[in-house]
């Protein structure tokens, strides 16, 4: 999705039980989504420490998206609710680091939502493309 010489780099933290399976489904059902997205599989969205997100955004990534199971569907009962609480803290940190709020997003994607996964990634990539490169990219 290159545009004006800027090709955003996007990290996606996907939980093992829902979103990663959703991404897999998007793949096997041949849904197209931008190649800017690099998926990192984590056991639960609740284990993504704010440090990981801030580090990514200050060290080369232009956007970070965190995907977990829908509330109530978490394999670990309440991991995704923890992720939501962490997301609130992450938004606060983005503000303090001088990063745009839109560079981070939390989305719920279940294992059966391959189409939604591709759609979310398309939207997010477009949005980050519009924002331009992260101010931390020297």
């Amino acid at each position: 999705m290159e545009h004006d010489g800027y090709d955003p780099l996007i990290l996606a933290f996907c939980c093992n039980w829902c979103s990663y399976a959703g991404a897999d489904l998007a793949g096997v059902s041949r849904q197209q989504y931008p190649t800017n997205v690099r998926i990192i599989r984590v056991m639960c969205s609740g284990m993504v420490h704010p440090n990981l997100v801030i580090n990514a955004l200050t060290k080369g990534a232009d956007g970070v998206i965190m995907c977990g199971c829908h509330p109530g569907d978490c394999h670990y009962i309440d991991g995704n609710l923890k992720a939501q609480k962490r997301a609130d803290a992450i938004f606060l940190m983005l503000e303090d680091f001088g990063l745009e709020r839109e560079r981070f997003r939390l989305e719920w994607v279940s294992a059966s939502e391959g189409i939604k996964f591709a759609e979310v990634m398309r939207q997010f990539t477009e949005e980050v493309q519009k924002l331009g490169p992260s101010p931390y990219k020297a």
Partner: protein
Amino acid sequence: MVARVAQEWFAICGGCEVTILDIGEPLIELLEKINIVHMPVLMDHKLYGQTGEGTAMEIPEAEVGIITGGVRNEEHRHLAKEMRKKCKVLIAMGTCACSGGIPALGNLSLKDEILKKVYEESVTTDKGVAPSVDIPPLTDRVYAISEVVPVDVSLPGCPSTPEMVTEALTALLTGTAFALPTKSVCDDCPTIREKKAVSGLKRNLQAPEFTVGRPLKEMRCLMEQGILCLGPATRTGCGGSEGTPRCIRAYQPCEGCFGPISEKANPMVDMMGALSTVGLDPKNVADRAATFNRFSGAGRLRPLPKR
């Protein structure tokens, strides 16, 4: 053998030099082993030669070089490189040299904004022009010494403790190892911690609750009393051989002067975590970026992008 010592100061208040004096009696013993060849605060040794005959700023050869203060202008940058070239071992002394210190809070604003504010917009100043002739130009931001040249030993603290300075100098002179602690101030703090705040965040400088004359281990953790303490994200070591951190000894919260626990640590994220762990809301902290990075702005603070 007597070791030659060269010392230079950059963007700094001069407190670190006072610390050297504050070493006290051990200083007498130490002075027999060193020969100070360059130290602007003590002696009249000029950079361009004693009669100004030189063409470039020069620093005499030395075994040990001590730099205090961060790099704020091009002269500092040049001298930092010169010190590195002429000294076998380079010590960054004080938090300003190690991680920017208080001057690095200026990294939250652009250089031109600062000049404009100071010389043109400040309400108490008659509008003037920023000086530009015969003075070294400012660098774009405040740099720690290690961002400009490699540093062998870092002695953080605002100021460093006399004990630590003696220890480091003695270690260098005798060839033994010197390392900074890698734990946080909380690890050395004797107060009672129950991981639960008993009050919301209080205003700065509100007095904590404690009984005068009773030992510190009977006082509740200051953070849990609602007093913002930077202990969780700050390197310990200020207590020296006594252990208990300096500010805590005075019933005051840690100000964070030893800088982050490691070079790569991110005090802002660490502090947000520490606040939420005890149930305090980081949203209530005023000016979070500056507060959490009070002494570690070089390379960590930057102006917020304009939208």
